[in-house]
């Protein structure tokens, strides 16, 4: 199969690991009772489920940053838009069980004296339509934004800054009450999804499995893209954009494709995130959020996909631990992580592991050793080299 060639041995192991987690965690939650050593609490299920959606988001970022050199500081916006699309579906499912018991309008609209549903809420009571929007809304925004940016060759830090401005503008917009997205409270108090009560253990287990499957799919798509000839061109663009253009490739088309794909993956991650945490609000659009996502990838090792997942889980596990144990120090730790990773581990955890393995092999020459391909070899510190 074609996929086997792209996945490689490590890829299969990764998929296997996610599949095991995707089955074992919900099984241990449902089959055992509290007190049993194998029991996994409902809190852990939604926590790990949340990490799985973050992992998918990290893959989306790694796809454009690690392989194409596009540093987007606005990916939180695509994540949040996907989340809002899901949130709108869930809000419509509340029906007349809201505080004001209005059959059509959500509570916040009744509260601010809206009389009818605005047009952009139409159709969101339909699950299929909502899922289409999860893909289309971030995808369209990314397409338009990317088309404008790449066409006029806005690259490097310029792109980063205007993508940050984009998410900032969206944040301001979604904070407005009269936008019709619930203002700063966002959307919450969800009741059920596809007819299943959203707080039930079984539904949570189902959402967990869905997140695991989405992560596996996302990983396979990313592997397929990066392993193909298209992926080779993307790496070429990352390392020498002008040269690739002079060789006859339409650089902006490649970038636009991968950027839009990445935004859609981020949207799916957001859509799976919202039912598991039970709320979506404009705070998800804050530029700080988007930068934090980039750091997950940097910590794990960019340009490796698996590294992005490891980074997302590791940083978020650290955050969970820090914010309960030493809430004061989380920002110190995060800030120090940013600095340490960029200064001392530019290739992240996976990169460091690979160099360690390579170093071990070099110590013990092995005639059967295969040559590991290091995707970051072209990225070590260059002074005065062409801007990224």
């Amino acid at each position: 199969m074609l996929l086997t060639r792209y996945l490689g041995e490590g890829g299969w192991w990764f998929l296997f690991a996610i599949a095991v987690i995707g089955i074992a965690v919900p099984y241990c939650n449902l089959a055992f009772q509290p007190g049993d050593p194998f029991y996994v609490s409902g809190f852990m299920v939604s926590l790990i489920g949340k990490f799985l959606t973050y992992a998918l988001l990290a893959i989306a970022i790694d796809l454009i940053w690690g392989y194409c050199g596009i540093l987007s500081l606005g990916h939180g916006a695509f994540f949040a838009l996907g989340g809002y699309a899901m949130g709108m579906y869930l809000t419509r499912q509340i029906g007349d069980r809201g505080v004001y018991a209005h059959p059509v309008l959500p509570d916040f609209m009744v509260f601010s004296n809206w009389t009818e549903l605005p047009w952009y809420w139409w159709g969101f009571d339909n699950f299929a339509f909502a899922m289409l929007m999860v893909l289309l809304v971030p995808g369209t925004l990314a397409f338009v934004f990317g088309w404008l940016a790449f066409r006029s060759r806005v690259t490097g830090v310029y792109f980063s800054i205007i993508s940050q401005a984009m998410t900032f503008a969206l944040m301001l917009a979604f904070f407005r009450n009269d936008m019709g997205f619930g203002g700063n409270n966002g959307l919450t108090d969800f009741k059920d999804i596809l007819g299943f009560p959203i707080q039930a253990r079984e539904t949570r287990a189902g959402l967990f499995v869905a997140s695991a499957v989405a992560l596996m799919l996302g990983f396979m798509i990313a592997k397929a893209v990066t392993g193909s000839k298209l992926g080779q061109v993307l790496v070429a663009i990352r390392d020498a954009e002008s040269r690739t253009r002079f060789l006859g490739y339409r650089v902006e088309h490649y970038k636009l494709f991968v950027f839009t794909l990445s935004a859609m993956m981020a949207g799916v991650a957001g859509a799976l995130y919202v039912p598991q945490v039970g709320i979506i609000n404009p705070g998800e659009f804050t530029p700080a959020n988007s930068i934090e996502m980039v750091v997950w990838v940097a910590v794990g090792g960019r340009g490796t996909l698996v590294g992005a997942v490891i980074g997302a889980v590791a940083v978020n596990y650290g955050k969970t631990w820090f914010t309960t144990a030493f809430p004061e120090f989380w920002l110190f730790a995060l800030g120090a992580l940013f600095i340490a990773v960029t200064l001392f581990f530019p290739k992240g955890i996976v990169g460091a592991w690979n160099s360690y393995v390579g170093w071990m092999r070099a110590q013990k020459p092995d005639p059967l050793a295969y040559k590991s391909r290091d995707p970051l070899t072209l990225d070590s510190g260059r002074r005065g080299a062409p801007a990224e």
Partner: protein
Amino acid sequence: MTRVATMQVLRLLLVFLVLGVAFGQPQPAVAEDREALVATLAGGSFAEKERAIQAAAATGDPDFVPVLQAMADNRLFERKSDGRVVVGEPVGRNFRLLDAVTLDELETVAAGALDRVRVNNRVRRALSVAIGSMTLLSPDPAQRIRAAQSVFRSGDPEALPILDQALLDETSDRARTRLEQARAAVILNTDAPDEAKIAAIGVIAARGDREALTLLTGFRNQAEGELLEAAERGVATVERRLKTWEMAQHVTFGLSLGSVLLLAAIGLAITFGVMGVINMAHGEMVMLGAYTTFVVQQAIRTHYPELFDASLFIAIPLAFAVTGAVGIAIERGIIRWLYGRPLETLLATWGLSLVLQQTVRTIFGPTNREVGNPSWMSGSMEIGAISITMNRLWIFFFALAVFALLLLILKRTSFGLEMRAVTQNRQMAGAMGIRTGRVDALTFGLGSGVAGLAGVALSQIDNVSPNLGQSYIIDSFLVVVFGGVGNLWGTLTAAMTLGIVNKFLEPYAGAVLGKIAVLVLVILFIQKRPRGLFPQRGRAVEA
């Protein structure tokens, strides 16, 4: 000299006038003798008080002014012990008393020993008219102008005779204009002939401010025929005038916002624009500058409170030194390892900004800190129909001064020359004997120090909290990118343009939508001109 003489003639005239008024009234006449008047002011019914006030005004006796003023301020009392009417000057919780009849100083007593003279709204209105018309004859032109203003607002026909008198021997042009406007406002309330009223409308329309508009609109709503037409013309004139002033007001607000943006962005124009370093911790440098101001003010408050007005002058060099030093430390410690890797620089400095924010939050707490305005920065200034607060005005000039100074450093000093040389060709500059590492550190220190100066200024208009820098960082980057990297003039133009565009959009779209619109406009603009308004040209561009 002549003024005092005429005042006396006037007073005589007014006494006759009062006699006329007094005799003309069906109620028992109000005694014109001062003691009786004061007694009525304190003890009469509200209607009697009102008449006594008018009578007092008509005497034109300036000694009545403090008594009436005290009554208007609820400081006129009857002493409980002997029922004497007294004026109270608040001294802490007590009152220093003056006899209301003779204005002789009496003892100081607690508020409990006094009965307040009660006034109602009608009496209060009568008081303000009376005080207004009495001061119309004051020898001080500023006071005459204030009095004319108060008559203009009240439009009380009672003031007409005094206005006419005051106009007769008015010498100051400004006071004369004000008096004429007051007279016109009064005319509209009398049964003067239509021609006089139309002329009055013309006078008021020529004044052309918001008060004139209120007055004319009020008059229009009850006018008929020719008067209605005249009033409508007058309203239209004033509205046109106000529209022009409103534009001017937007421009001044815009320039003020622009100067804030310029201050926040200009340090970035050095570090990002000249050196090409993405410093996401730039906002935190601004914040550190603001906190330096806070610390300086705290020290001054506790040790040398009399120096408070000079606190900013002490804070400015200190903030520059503190943030400059932090900047140099950052450059030597982090940034120099990351030259040529802008995306990594961005991430590392962002991490640094988190650390700095949290440090400040740990030391100073997460809440806003109070930074005071020195006296010379408070208050506001009126030009025509627009008002400019002094702190905004100072910040505007401060921003321009910082800009000029930076330009001077860059173009006219040997340090600036070295800086430009290193930016343009590092190897060559090194080969010519310039210590490039040192220049890098100093340049970054300069940019950070300027951010600290911005912090001193922003502490005067914004909340000083650990998040201060966050709110400026995106705006500052947009300003630098919009203006064109590596071009200080571009930064100036961009800051002012964005400021003015923002303020013009605000009334139509609201503050938030206006800001969003500006962001979108800049994003679109960058599509068209990816390298800003004033792009750099030549070989350096691609490097």
